[in-house]
């Protein structure tokens, strides 16, 4: 698999996980098909936070790799 393809897959995977997580955390009931105002606000924040957490972990991972080489193990 090409690097470009792997990157695309990882991106799609992250998006799917984000959709799942934020639905679980923000959508409370199924009385209506539309998201309520509160649910929408929650979803927007959830997406930003998920994105932020993703960046954070990525940074840490990168630092670990740089510090200990590619064979560095967590812990």
């Amino acid at each position: 698999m090409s690097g470009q393809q792997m990157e695309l897959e990882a991106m799609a995977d992250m998006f799917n996980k984000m959709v799942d997580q934020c639905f679980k955390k923000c959508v409370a009931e199924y009385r209506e098909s539309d998201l309520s105002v509160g649910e929408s606000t929650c979803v927007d924040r959830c997406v930003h936070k998920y994105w932020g957490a993703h960046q954070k972990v990525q940074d840490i991972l990168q630092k670990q790799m740089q510090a200990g080489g590619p064979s560095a193990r967590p812990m």
Partner: protein
Amino acid sequence: MDQDQARMLAALEEMQMRDSLRTFNGLVERCFTDCVTGFRSKSLTDGEDKCVTACAEKFFNHARRVGQRFGELSQKQQEDLMKRMQPK
């Protein structure tokens, strides 16, 4: 279209197919778990029917919204990256 591009497109199509099948199965599971509670009849009750419908529709509305926010964030990231690469 060169070969690389064709291969990429085919992979993309396969990925989308896999993704939508997984989304579909996940959605059925989620809406069934959350909406169907009684087994006194073999068809969905009115309430269950409404719940499943709203659940599925709501999920798609939700996914669309997440997609919009996600798009904005990736675009911003791209722009920031471009800005950093340009000489000051």
